[in-house]
């Protein structure tokens, strides 16, 4: 992976630029000491690192606007950053850029339970939104595994999802409005405290635009009444392919669980060792969760058991208590961390139509054999969003490249099967160069024109999403 070469005239002008920022921000909002900026050198994609020129941590939309006016005037690239948990390098800086962090934009502005919505500053964490409305019997649906730390800003930029998105949709389906600051410093509201804005859906295109169209400082989020109850069942199978078949059957039969998650043996063992979630030791495991009253849950689980039985399950275990359910989910949500304890890994994020699950799992295992690198699978099976984890040794020369090449092959396989490169982690720098496998030059050209409208100078997160050679002319102008 390459990053564009840095603009030395900006780097040499650092002191003056810092002076400009100090004029509009309090001193604790400007970080320029190289020891401190180093903390921002990468996000969750740790294979790539580079310290930014400075880090700015504004407290208000007005401050964000002032910062962008300066950067616009001085032609300094801006890298928006939430909690830095992106797995695609979305928040990776260059040495001539400033990071604009949302960590101090962290107030919940309006809890409007009556109208089923909340307004927040976007630096709040995902989980804190649910925590704020829980006592009123509500929750915020998108639940990325990183929800304890990741921010609503990052969620909007990456259109993040989570285990429970099968029923409730991803960020874009739960976002009613934003306040956004464009690169020239102008502030606007898109959508708001109501359903569906009229006319062109700018909100829709801002969500998932990976911080390339504007800095989102506030968001209006839809909240949902908590179901009476929810309970998962564990279904174990002795092959990945059979588990894949079972998933398409459950969905095809008219049952819509809240979540259907998949894990293979490597992951199951790692999670068991890490949190002791009570998973059976099987080749492939499905966690299927349903919601409703106790009776409704029983009925749905019965239907699911009937379907599963047709696929010769080797284990079927219903959660019997809230405590057990919590553990089951803790295990799933810790899967990446658990794998990280035993090996270096690279996490992929391709999607495929659910009906192709068996094919893709077979394809991945034969690719993994060819490359001689193990691949563990843990993913949102219900909506076909895969997270193959490629295990490799980061200290061994050439392994990272080999791993990246296997990753590219797996993602291209997803595209071949009718899927796409990223379901929820975004393109960032990681999948940038694969974009031409999914899109034609014209498809990408028209996407880039959208950026031209919002950010004509290509200063916001410029080296992301689009292959460098395709975006070059725009970035250098």
């Amino acid at each position, binding site marked *: 992976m390459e990053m564009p070469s840095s603009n030395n005239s900006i780097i040499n002008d650092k002191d003056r630029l810092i002076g400009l920022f100090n004029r509009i921000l309090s001193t604790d909002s400007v970080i320029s000491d190289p020891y401190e900026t180093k903390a921002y050198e990468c996000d969750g994609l740790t294979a790539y690192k580079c310290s930014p020129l400075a880090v700015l941590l504004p407290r208000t939309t007005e401050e964000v606007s002032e910062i962008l006016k300066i950067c616009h005037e001085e032609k300094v690239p801006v890298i928006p950053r939430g909690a830095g948990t992106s797995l695609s390098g979305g928040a990776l800086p260059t040495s001539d850029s400033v990071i604009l962090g949302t960590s101090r934009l962290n107030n919940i502005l309006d809890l409007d339970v*009556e*109208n*089923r919505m909340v307004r927040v500053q976007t630096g709040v964490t995902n989980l804190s939104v649910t925590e704020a409305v829980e006592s009123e*019997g509500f929750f915020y649906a998108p639940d990325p595994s990183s929800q304890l730390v990741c921010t609503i800003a990052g969620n909007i930029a990456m259109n993040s*999802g989570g285990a429970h998105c*099968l029923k409730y*949709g991803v960020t874009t389906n739960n976002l009613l409005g934003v306040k956004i600051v464009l690169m020239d410093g102008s502030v*606007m*509201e898109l959508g*708001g*405290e*109501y359903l*569906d*804005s*009229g006319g*062109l859906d*700018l909100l*829709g*295109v801002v*969500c*998932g*635009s990976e911080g390339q169209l504007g800095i989102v400082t506030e968001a209006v989020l839809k909240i949902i*009444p908590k*179901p*009476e109850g929810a309970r998962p069942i564990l279904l174990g199978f002795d092959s990945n392919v059979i588990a894949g078949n079972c998933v*398409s*059957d459950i*969905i095809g039969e*008219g049952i*819509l669980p809240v979540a259907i998650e998949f894990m293979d043996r490597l992951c199951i063992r790692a999670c068991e060792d890490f949190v002791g979630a009570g998973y059976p030791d099987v080749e492939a495991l499905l966690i299927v969760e349903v919601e*409703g*009253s106790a*009776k409704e849950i029983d*009925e749905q689980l019965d239907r699911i058991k009937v379907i599963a039985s047709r696929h010769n399950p080797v284990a079927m275990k219903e959660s019997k208590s809230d405590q057990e359910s919590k553990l089951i989910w803790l295990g799933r949500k810790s899967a990446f961390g658990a794998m990280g304890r035993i090996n270096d890994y690279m996490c992929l994020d391709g*999607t495929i*139509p659910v*009906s*192709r699950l068996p094919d893709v799992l077979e394809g991945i295992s034969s690719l993994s054999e060819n490359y001689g690198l193990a691949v563990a699978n843990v993913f949102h099976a219900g*909506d076909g*969003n895969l997270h193959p984890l490629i295990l490799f040794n980061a200290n061994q020369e050439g392994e990272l490249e080999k791993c990246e090449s296997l990753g590219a092959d797996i993602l291209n396989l997803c595209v071949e099967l*009718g*899927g*796409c490169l*990223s*379901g*929820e*982690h*975004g*393109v960032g720098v990681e*999948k940038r160069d694969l*974009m031409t496998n999914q*899109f034609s030059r014209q*498809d*990408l050209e*028209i*996407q880039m024109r*959208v950026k*031209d*409208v919002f950010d004509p100078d290509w200063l916001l997160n410029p080296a992301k*999403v689009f292959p460098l050679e395709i975006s070059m002319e725009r970035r250098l102008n």
Partner: protein
Amino acid sequence: MRPANESELSDLIAGRISPVISCGGGTRPIGLTSIGERLYLGNLNRITQYEPGALTLVAEAGTTLKTIFEILNEKGQMLPFEPIDYRGLLGCRGEPTIGGMVATNSSGPRRVKVGACRDYVIGLRFVDGEGNIIKSGGRVMKNVTGYDLTKLLTGSFGTLGIITEVALKVLPAPTHAAVLLIEGLPEKLALEVLNRSLNSPFEVSGAAHLCSGLDGYPVTMIRLEGFQSSVMYRAEELSKYLEDTVTITVETDPERTRGGWEYIRDVGPFQNRKGDVWKIITKPNEALSLVKGLRESIEIEVFYDWAGSLIWALVHKGTNLRDYLQSLNGHATLIRASDGNKSNLQVFHQQSIMELELKKRLKHKFDPRNILNQGMIL
């Protein structure tokens, strides 16, 4: 003009210098009819792919909704957002198409629970104003690969590109429905009851109030859907939950429940009535004061869907409703009026200058020669 397929359409647009107006079934004449030659998409009518097990359907834009509903019905599935059928209200014939539905982002009563049309369009293909064939999104549920142009095109009324194919997420159709009916409630209480229902855990999938139902009395309607036992359970629980305030009857007859919600969905109360029809979207708890304010100034009839977030209003022809909605938190669209009134009053709500400017620039990027559905929304 009737292109036989996408590539013919692409050639046609590339070679054109004067404007075109795209037509699916011609059943949603909402935006102001703009100048140009009509472009009929009826030949693009193939179902490209339908995979019930993956909950996805891909069809060419000119495919009729009638065809789509037929094949979905066979597998017990549905378009969850309940697209509105405008034929009764707008007095047009023809068959609505899937492309027209997406281009106008049409959703009905179930929108409160499941989301809008735009939430179910997972990918599409279109021809831009220079004749380029573009694809965006895909046919999978989750996708953050590049910008979500699919959202931008959905609801764009054909102004950014001519949609040629759409991929939709579909859902299992509920096997049963029950409607809680409450008679005679004053509006304030009705809206409170609807919102309390939506704020309960019982998964309400419809929440409407008619100030004057078929028998002339107010009626409040709350819908529950799903498997039979679950519907019955929730009907009972929700009735208990609301009982301190109101008396409830539960309707479960499939014909009647379906008919009732179609009446709401298709703006039944204002079909065959004289006057202009407006659609107002606002914050639920601001609906009542908004309507009160309007009643003080003009003669108006309303009914409520989406627990008050959606207000349908009937007024005398030529009334500029927006004059009385200065502090509206939301927007108002003039759905039915003469072309003259549409042109005077404007169909779509005025946006901030900045937003309008941004949208104009987007339009210019997609359609530099301004030949696609000129003047429709911008």
